[in-house]
């Protein structure tokens, strides 16, 4: 089962790398934001993988379960709780970014980052 864990870690690393690449190098702002959501997903997957126990059970104590058997076999639930929060934070950050993009599109009429987010100090001099 160690193979599965290794594969999961590789998947999360791949998601983070894909996301970082797109956040840094892709010019289109919406694709940048999609890439950022992939970085967050990769981080979440990594933290869930910490709590995973190969061959274990879901960490919910059902009536009739032996407590010591449960303690030995259940997955570690703390990371799962953390990831719940982190998913929701990621979604809200994404929503705020998209809202800002929609406002800026009305002003510039393009989604290109190099036009939209050019160095603002230079723009001010250009305006004068």
């Amino acid at each position, binding site marked *: 089962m160690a193979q*599965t864990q290794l*594969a*999961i870690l*590789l*998947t999360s690393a*791949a*998601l983070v790398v*894909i*996301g970082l690449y*797109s956040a840094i190098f*892709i010019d*289109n702002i*919406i*694709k940048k*934001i*999609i*890439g950022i*959501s*992939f970085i967050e*997903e990769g981080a*979440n*997957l990594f933290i*869930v*993988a910490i*709590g*995973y*126990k190969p061959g*274990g*059970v*879901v*960490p*919910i104590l059902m009536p009739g379960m032996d407590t010591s058997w449960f303690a030995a076999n259940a*997955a570690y639930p703390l990371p*799962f709780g953390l*990831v*719940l929060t982190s*998913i*929701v934070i*990621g*979604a809200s950050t*994404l*929503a705020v970014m*998209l809202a800002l*993009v*929609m406002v800026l*599109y009305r002003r510039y009429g*393009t*989604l*290109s980052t190099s036009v939209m987010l050019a160095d603002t100090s230079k723009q001010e001099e250009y305006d004068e």
Partner: protein
Amino acid sequence: MLEFVLMIIIILSAILALIQKDLLKAAILTGFSGGALAVLFQILLAPDVALTQAIVGAAIVPVFIALAVKKTQREDS
């Protein structure tokens, strides 16, 4: 075996989403990636996280992106 298939779906749809010319397709592929991740969370013994990820990753995030695309422009120029 299912988990390996899911991992391949996640990574492939992530890469495909970023090379699309049509941003609406990119939004839908993001939803694919998020949904597959939700099933993967279920396999990793985290059903509560899987439920949240299924709602947020497979429905809310693609819908937000699709709305933003609808209000702006569809082609990646």
